[in-house]
């Protein structure tokens, strides 16, 4: 369960930013998570609750912006949304895809006070 390492990195960044700005805590945080980023939402929720305790993120409202996965077919160049990495091209049926969107894992912004 690497989600906890992920949440702990977020906590670390949040603690740094709050300190740098002489603030007290994080009110709201926006995360961008691609559907193929390898993050399980339930594991993330579980990890979040335990990892943010007694940190600047304890009371923060967490918004997750999900990014749908998109791929480009290496045969016919068409771009389309995919659910899994092994989906075939809907036009030509080829399985050779380049993933062009959906691997994002970012802290977009936070509001601190």
């Amino acid at each position, binding site marked *: *369960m*690497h989600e*906890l*390492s*992920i949440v*702990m*990195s*977020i906590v*670390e*960044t949040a603690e*740094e*930013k709050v300190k740098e*700005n002489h*603030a007290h805590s994080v*009110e709201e945080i926006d*995360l961008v998570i691609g559907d*193929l980023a*390898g993050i399980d939402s339930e594991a993330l929720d*579980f*990890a979040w609750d*335990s*990892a943010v305790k007694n940190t600047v993120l304890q009371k923060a409202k967490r918004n997750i912006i999900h990014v749908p996965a998109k791929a480009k077919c*290496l045969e016919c160049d068409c771009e389309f949304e995919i659910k*899994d*990495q*092994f989906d075939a091209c809907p036009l030509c049926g080829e*399985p*050779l895809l380049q993933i062009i969107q959906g691997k994002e*894992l*970012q*802290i*977009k*912004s*936070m*509001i*601190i*006070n």
Partner: protein
Amino acid sequence: MCATCGCDSETKVSIHRTNQHNPLSLENITFTPIEAKPTTLPNGRKQLDLEQDILLKNNLLAERNRGYFMAKNVVAFNLVSSPGSGKTSLLEKTLLDLKEQENFFVIEGDQQTSNDADRIAATQVPVVQINTGKGCHLDSSMIWEAIQQLKPIENSILFIENIGNLVCPAMFDLGEQKRVLIISVTEGDDKPLKYPDMFQSSQLCVINKIDLLPYVKFDLENVKKYARIINPSIQFIELSCTSGEGISTWYEWLKKEVVEQTPIAV
């Protein structure tokens, strides 16, 4: 807090040369990426537009490791697999067969014990054990600490044996030049579809224990077909550490990688 279940266990990551018990504490290395100025909001609040990759620190430190390896002409391989696929056996055999021809160094990653490092140490190859405690993967800062102790010499090969886990280690770049995934024929041949991230991020897939093929329901062509759907450029080597079949193909691959990674002298 532990990196698996969030318990307050005091188990810390420890890194030590085999037979030397001086675990290092991981130093905090801070990076300050350029970011937009905070926007002031009412009531003294501020909005910070970070757009920061959550794995930024790991990725930056991985690049630092990669730079260190390139400067010293150390070719680093990250060996990943499920538990029990034969990473350590493949390493042992490789070290014993090739140690007269190449300079090897090994970083062993396990949650607990130095059993694997002891096996490697028995081959007389320098080895550092990283015990992650409860952690499920190695990260680039652990490798950075480990290479401070291991001090690989120039023109050498570094094997990093990751924690046996096909999920979490996929996300963490260690600074390696190549990622080698090992699966064995006693596993399911649909592994590539179940664990696509690892197959996508690896350059070579070693299929181990092929001496057991007559006894198990494992279709070599299926595993290759599935893996190529995920990663069209992935290469395969089929071998058995027990019978030695196919092992020379692995050695040829290694030697070719070493030649290709060696910078051209100016």
